[in-house]
């Protein structure tokens, strides 16, 4: 994609600037769980366009955009009023506002159509642009927008974040909450109206939702969230333009959305910690650890029972004490061996040094938890075992220390001396 081609330059530059500005503003919407405000406000601009046309008699985009901004602003006010004054939740307020204002808009359009206002068709098409048709004017507009948004966000970062998470705290601190709300709303309207004029409703809505949603998978830090959202928005702008440039009839805006969707898919699946793959492998690791731990604990119990630490146990002997089918036996054995807890022996298996310690630890934690439940939580004795079977795997040393403190146990607490009830 040649940047020497002026149209390409217009589109790519505009998309970068708009993408950056929109994603930033979108983060706040996302954090306040009102991402769809872009969609709502965009639809609410229709009556404003109609009114502006009726009052001014012209299709000059300046008038139309002004009208659009006014009703867009009103719609945000209406929506906020519903949320603030009533038990109406955000999603409901958005839906009601969107439908109500849009219906009024359509009513106005029909009215315009009936009168002899002259060339009135496609008024909304004057407002809802297409990404591929950017020109140098747009670059200037978006440049200005991006600067304005970034400066505002930089200056008021903490305050905006506070507004998203803890309004009451801000007002207690004496900060002008109303003004901050106004500022965020203003930035949102500004972004939406300039964005829609260039790229249309759906792309604008997408730019305000998807980058933040995708970025959220990668971080819990707010600064990183904003930075990543911007990165995603800009990348999607560039890649989307690139793809749409490959052949005829490939619309630019929709491809930007597709790129955003791909970024989201990658984030959803591969992000560390919050991604699906990461969660799946954590679960898998946990499962395997639990299997191995259970196995080594059971071997320990057999060995300990006979007080012979180095005794080796045959498979059949093991199976008389514990119920395993062949597959799960082999699997658990393998896992325990791979963790170094079980060693193959002449006639079966035996515990390694580590294995013995592990088994002892598990046993101890199990008994500890049982005592804790029995004494502190008044759990009936029949139920404590089942819970301990689970909890023994996740008690950390710190937690163990705390529990011992709670129970007033001395340091060389030995589980043998306490009651152990098997379910």
């Amino acid at each position, binding site marked *: 994609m040649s940047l020497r*081609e*002026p*149209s*390409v330059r*217009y*589109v790519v530059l505009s998309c970068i600037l708009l993408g950056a500005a929109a994603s930033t503003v979108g983060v706040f919407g996302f954090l306040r769980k009102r991402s769809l405000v872009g969609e709502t406000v965009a639809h609410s601009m229709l009556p404003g366009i109609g009114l502006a046309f009726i009052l001014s008699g012209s299709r000059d985009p300046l008038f139309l955009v002004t009208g659009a901004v006014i009703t867009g602003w009103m719609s945000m006010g209406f929506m906020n009023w519903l949320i603030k004054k009533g038990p109406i939740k955000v999603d409901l307020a958005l839906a009601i506002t969107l439908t109500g204002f849009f219906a009024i808009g*359509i009513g106005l*359009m*029909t009215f315009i*159509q*009936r009168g*002899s*206002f*002259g*060339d*009135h*068709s*496609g008024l909304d*098409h*004057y407002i809802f*642009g*297409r990404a*591929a*048709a*950017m*020109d*140098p*004017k747009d670059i200037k507009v978006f440049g200005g927008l991006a600067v304005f948004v970034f400066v505002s966000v930089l200056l008021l970062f903490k305050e905006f974040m506070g507004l998203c998470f803890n309004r009451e705290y801000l007002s207690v601190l004496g900060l002008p909450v109303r003004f901050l709300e106004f500022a965020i709303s203003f930035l949102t309207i500004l972004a939406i109206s300039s964005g829609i004029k260039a790229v249309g409703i759906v792309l604008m809505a997408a730019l305000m939702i998807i980058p933040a949603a995708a970025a959220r998978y990668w971080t819990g830090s707010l600064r990183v969230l904003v930075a990543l959202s911007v990165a995603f928005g800009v990348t999607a702008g560039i890649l989307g*333009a690139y793809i*749409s*440039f*490959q*052949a*005829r*009839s*490939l*619309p*630019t*805006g*929709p*491809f930007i959305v597709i790129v955003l969707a791909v970024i989201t898919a990658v984030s959803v699946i591969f992000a560390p910690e919050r991604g699906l793959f990461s969660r799946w492998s954590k679960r898998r690791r946990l499962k395997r650890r639990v299997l191995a731990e259970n196995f080594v604990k059971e071997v320990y119990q057999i060995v300990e029972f006979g007080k012979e630490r180095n005794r080796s146990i045959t498979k059949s002997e093991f199976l008389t004490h514990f119920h395993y089918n062949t597959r799960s036996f082999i699997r658990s054995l393998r896992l325990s061996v791979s963790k170094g807890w079980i060693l193959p022996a002449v006639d079966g298996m035996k515990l390694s040094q580590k294995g013995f310690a592990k088994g002892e630890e598990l046993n101890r934690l199990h008994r500890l938890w049982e005592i804790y439940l029995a004494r502190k939580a008044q759990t009936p004795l029949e139920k404590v075992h089942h819970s301990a079977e689970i909890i023994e795997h996740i008690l950390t040393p710190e937690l163990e220390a705390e529990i011992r403190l709670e129970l007033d146990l001395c340091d060389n607490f030995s589980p043998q001396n306490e009651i152990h009830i098997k379910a």
Partner: protein
Amino acid sequence: MKKIFLLLALIALFFGCKNEQAQTKSNSILTTTSILGDIIRNMVPEEIEVINLMGPGTDPHLYKASPSDYVHIREAQFIVLSGLHLEGKMAEVILGLDGEKKVKELTSSMTTEQIINSDGFADGHDPHVWMDVEIVRWCVLKLKTDLIKWFPEHRKAINERSEAYILKLGRLNREVLSILNEVPAERRIIVTSHDALNYFARAYQYEVRSLQGFSTAAEFGLKDVTALVDFIIDRKVPAIFVENIVSDQALKAVQAACQERGFEVALGGSLFTDALGNENTKANTYEGMIRANAITISHALKN
């Protein structure tokens, strides 16, 4: 509280149930587009009323009917549509009324050679037939027979007026041809944002390039824009044209790109494609519209 609402609603419904005797208008023709309305108006005498659903400046693709329009449809005995699915869903529904009412499409008499198809889709006919005056003459000639069948008592008047109109359109066609022929062959390129001029191009030996196809839902992409810019610069197109019902955002962007590459292409003016112009303009009649388009195109391209 609930009971009050319910009562109110039932009362209102009751009023609606009173059998309204719909009047039928036997002495009027209902037409859809403003262009069609003007054409029909020229074919029938004063005694027959011509009611037009879409006023000037209304894009047929975006038209939304209102209750009074439905009353018109209900009351009408004779309806003329433009045809080739121009009016969308409304056309389908109105065609379904053929039988209890008399419904005719202007384009129904066209042959398959006359109709311009889009590639690959049998159903995809270009409906902008009125951009070719000869086709309109043909259709008027054929439609005259139907109108006479509808209004036998006005046979003479319809015949006279229609024939006169056909002659008038013939003169218009010659006039338009001479205006358009003033443009040298290599400059006969019309660039617009939307594909409405295929019939025009075929009839008057022009080439048409647009950014977007017929559909309002389809979108052009970056490559389409750069291809158009290349085309304009390659062929040294003097001017590009906006349509009266479509936004000029795209064309302005194309113009800016051309300018940056060193080629000045002018915005040649506004063309009337899907609807007549305002009452105070010359493009308020079909003839006026065609003539205005021809003058706009010729003026912009020949210099």
